[in-house]
């Protein structure tokens, strides 16, 4: 079927669409913290947390094809770094972000050492072990003096009270009075900042020489090696970076809540699975996938949170979910996942691209038209990750 409309990449129409999208996103981002209800701001902040974690995980999977079930541990490293520095040493929460980044980077790079040698299911199991061990480690009595053990830590975030009404950046106070309810937009903006940083790092990597070499490793590691790519160092850095970025939304969790315990859901393996699901439903291997996935995940969770009461479920689908005595968001997502894997294995973003391709065709710029000096990556994002595809055998005797 021939597409109805055709748009030139880089032409005025494509720019108009880009600007329109940017304006829409900008409008929503401003609307939520200024006009939205408190619960909406809360939901949005949680969505941002998931976004950051899923984006980090996506860097690993989309680029190097490695699956990690241990990202909840890196997330938790972020949470506990902030919690410990704030409660034990009285640091300002924002200053703990770079510390968490570095700590998680180091742990991630160390974990990547076995990851260099193993693949697929084995790697999934090793990282799963990390995810399982982390909460146990935090509870370990010998380090309870630091981590607070199973009881956790209190007052891990910003302390706003009568005497301390606001948070200033070098004497500049853009948030007004931060007591009580007004504090919510503040966390929202921290979330935006964290997601923006992670997004920009991922995007920068995709378009760069390093990004290309990562896809080269995933496609054909022997050939990548004879191009001069140092496999061990490159993979280690990406694993470390993915871990480091995942710690940042973890920090936010500690900042906005007043209590941190090792049993917080996102710090256990449940967190790892959630990040993975968010990423896959949104679209693994594309930059926007995890972002869309997190928004949809939170919307569904929010909409169905009172479905514990069967009368609240719309009558049409009541028979399906009424038996559940917990909110069925997880079940709905699991169903969505199964359906998606059949109709669109590349997630919602993949589905959108398939659909839009029927209507609009984007004409790529002709080759050699002056863009060789700063070439764009082939797929405009992280090139497609294909879940069912075996990596093609390159050097045949491999």
């Amino acid at each position, binding site marked *: 079927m021939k597409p109805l409309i055709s748009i030139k990449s880089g032409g005025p129409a494509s720019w108009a669409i880009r600007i329109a999208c940017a304006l829409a996103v900008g409008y929503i981002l401003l609307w939520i913290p200024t006009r939205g209800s408190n619960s909406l701001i809360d939901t949005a902040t949680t969505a941002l947390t998931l976004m950051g974690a899923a984006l980090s995980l996506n860097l690993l999977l989309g680029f190097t094809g490695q699956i990690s079930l241990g990202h909840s541990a890196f997330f938790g490293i972020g949470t506990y770094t902030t919690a410990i520095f704030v409660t034990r040493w009285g640091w300002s929460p924002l200053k703990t972000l770079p510390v968490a980044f570095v700590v998680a980077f180091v742990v991630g790079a160390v974990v990547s050492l076995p990851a260099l040698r193993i693949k697929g299911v084995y790697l999934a199991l090793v990282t799963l072990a990390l995810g399982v061990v982390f909460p146990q480690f935090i509870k370990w009595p010998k380090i309870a003096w630091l981590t607070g053990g199973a009881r956790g830590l209190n007052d891990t975030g910003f302390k706003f009270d009568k005497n301390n009404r606001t948070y200033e950046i070098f004497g500049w106070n853009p948030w007004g009075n931060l007591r009580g309810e007004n504090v919510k937009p503040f966390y929202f903006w921290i979330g935006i900042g964290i997601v923006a940083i992670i997004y920009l790092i991922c995007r920068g990597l995709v378009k760069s020489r390093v990004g290309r070499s990562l896809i080269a490793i995933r496609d054909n590691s022997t050939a990548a090696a004879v191009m*001069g790519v140092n496999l061990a160092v490159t993979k280690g850095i990406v694993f470390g970076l993915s871990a480091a970025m995942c710690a940042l939304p973890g920090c936010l969790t500690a900042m906005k809540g007043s209590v941190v315990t090792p049993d917080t859901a996102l710090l256990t393996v449940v967190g790892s699975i959630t990040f993975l699901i968010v990423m896959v439903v949104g679209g693994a291997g594309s930059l926007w996938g995890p972002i869309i996935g997190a928004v949809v995940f939170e919307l569904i969770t929010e909409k169905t949170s009172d479905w514990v009461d069967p009368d609240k479920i719309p009558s049409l689908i009541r028979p399906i979910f009424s038996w559940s005595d917990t909110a069925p968001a997880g079940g709905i997502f699991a169903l969505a996942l199964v359906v998606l894997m059949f109709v669109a294995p590349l997630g919602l973003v993949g589905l959108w691209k398939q659909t839009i391709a029927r209507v609009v065709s984007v004409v790529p710029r002709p080759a050699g038209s002056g863009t060789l000096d700063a070439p764009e990556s082939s797929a405009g994002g992280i090139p497609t990750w294909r879940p069912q595809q075996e990596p093609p055998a390159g050097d045949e005797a491999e």
Partner: protein
Amino acid sequence: MTLLRAQGLTAGYGPVTVLHEIDIEVNEGEIVVVLGANGAGKTTTMRAISGTIPRHGTIEFQGHSIQKAAADAIVRAGVAQVPQGRGTFPELSVQDNLLAGAYVRRDGSKAIGDDIRKWFSVFPRLEERATQRAGSLSGGEQQMLAIARALMSRPKLLLCDEPSMGLAPLITQELFNVIGRLNREEGLSVLLVEQNANLAMHMASRVYLLETGVIVASGSAAELSADDSIRKAYLGF
């Protein structure tokens, strides 16, 4: 002048030793051909030189030992490899494959862009498919891409493992013409593994015969084809 000198080169996979103390030399400006039956160890020789498998012996490139160097350092030193089979990156576009070939270069995107244009003019088929995924190219086009990509690192020595595998005779001829031209015009030295012995012998400065990991004969193409038994066994006429 000797560009590459490997002496007592021994290599293998795990407990299996495939190459047994072979000596190979490539002088500047030469095209050296390695002939041998399937499983003789030709690909293993290439890998041992490019540092992608563990090896023993002395290997010198431009007078410096590269015996202990890792694969990426060897590429930086100026040795590029076209691996056997289609070693392209299927998910990257043709253009990005070429950029990946320039991974070790530090001379800026301008010079790299110029080189891409140059290889596009040598292989016009690649230019037509510049933004296409490499995985969607035909076998012959991928082989051209693999060679162009290896040359993107501006090597002094090209290790080329059976570039004609799976190609139509006409394309094979075209490819060999290009290699010959690069050798004459740019002084590129080539270590070539080729099953199509007749074709390879035409352009070879010197030839090595490899049999189960041992070099059984070496010399100029004329010398080797003058030897009846060698001609029968390897050249088939």
